[in-house]
């Protein structure tokens, strides 16, 4: 009985293997995925929103004390930033005058496509968004939030949907810098929303809460997009470089919308 069943199972295995090879080589698997994403999108939208609301509610209950402290810190940070903005307004005026004098003209804004998160892969740091090839999305395009925080790049494009490989994905790496201290390095994804800032020269001084932005190095993302803040510094006497753990500036679960940069200004 078992022997006969095994024969039948072996035949199923063989047939399935052939079917899988055909599906992958003809690219028909992409159509199947696109169809299922389309079919599930209304339910997934509701599930995502529902999960977000319940999660927010539970977080607000469990973290009341932490939130109080965080609000106080943010209030202080806000005051500091207001002071900096006042200084920057002056600089902006000066910059405008210089641009006019040099006849450069202001840089045009990038062309953006608005998208919504549909689901997240459970095994890796990738999300599905509701914009695809039909909307002009191409592989490798950068994806940001409305606060100009870098999220990742488009990893695969279907007709109506695309996959975004987050910067915290294990396969992701790109150039970044701490503009305040003019320190360059490489950001590497560690999975589960973890980031590490590597290849920082040993002699450079970095501190917790230093802001990290994308740099032109490597050319993966447009420069100047916010990556996150330094969380912990790792320095060893034997290594020629130091590294730092980064707290990402984005929280994928609290996002409603995100933007794909389809053309740079």
């Amino acid at each position, binding site marked *: 009985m078992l022997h006969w069943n095994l024969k039948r199972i072996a035949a199923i295995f063989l047939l399935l293997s052939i079917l899988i090879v055909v599906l992958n080589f003809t690219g028909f698997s992409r159509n199947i995925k696109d169809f299922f994403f389309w079919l599930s999108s209304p339910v997934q939208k509701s599930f995502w929103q529902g999960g977000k609301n319940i999660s927010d509610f539970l977080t607000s209950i469990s973290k009341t004390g932490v939130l109080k402290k965080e609000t106080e810190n943010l209030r202080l940070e806000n005051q500091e930033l207001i002071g900096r903005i006042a200084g920057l307004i002056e600089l902006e005026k000066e910059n405008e005058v210089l641009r006019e004098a040099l006849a450069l003209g202001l840089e045009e804004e990038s062309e953006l496509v608005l998208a919504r998160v549909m689901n997240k892969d459970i*095994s890796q740091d990738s999300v599905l968004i509701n914009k695809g090839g039909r909307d002009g999305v191409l592989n490798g395009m950068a994806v940001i939030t409305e606060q100009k925080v870098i999220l990742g790049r488009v990893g695969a494009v279907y007709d109506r949907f695309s996959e975004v490989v987050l910067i915290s994905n294990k396969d992701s790496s790109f150039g970044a810098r701490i503009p305040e201290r003019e320190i360059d390095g490489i950001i590497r994804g560690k999975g589960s929303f973890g980031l590490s800032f590597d290849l920082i020269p040993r002699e450079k001084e970095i501190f917790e809460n230093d802001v990290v932005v994308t740099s032109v190095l490597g050319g993966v993302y447009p420069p100047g997009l916010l990556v996150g803040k330094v969380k912990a510094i790792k320095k060893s006497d034997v290594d020629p470089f130091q590294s730092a753990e980064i707290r990402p500036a984005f929280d994928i679960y609290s996002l409603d919308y995100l933007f794909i940069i389809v053309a740079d200004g």
Partner: protein
Amino acid sequence: MIFIVWIIYLLSLLMAKKIIFFTVILYILILLQTSFLVHFSLSGFLPNFVLIAVIFVNLFSSSLKDKIISALIGGFYLDVFSLDSAGGFFGFYILIMLAIFLFLKIISEKYVRFPIIKKI
């Protein structure tokens, strides 16, 4: 919506009820897993509920049909909803699920006995 209901009705006429049952249950599970439960993951960790469901059916069901159908449908859904930008290929999870089915079948038939627990 009418189209979907019509397809489900047609499938129920053509196929066995169990296929419909597993198709619907595993579909709801995969949607919950990828869109709802991801918000409640602990440090990015979330159990694979479809995989757990398939293993559960393979361990406790006595019907060979149930076991293989759940493995195939579960694997198919995991393939569809696993984002393949990391370079994976479509069908990976179907093969994994079938391998799990085969492994559990051989182990349970040859080496495991349940003297007290009666099989469902």
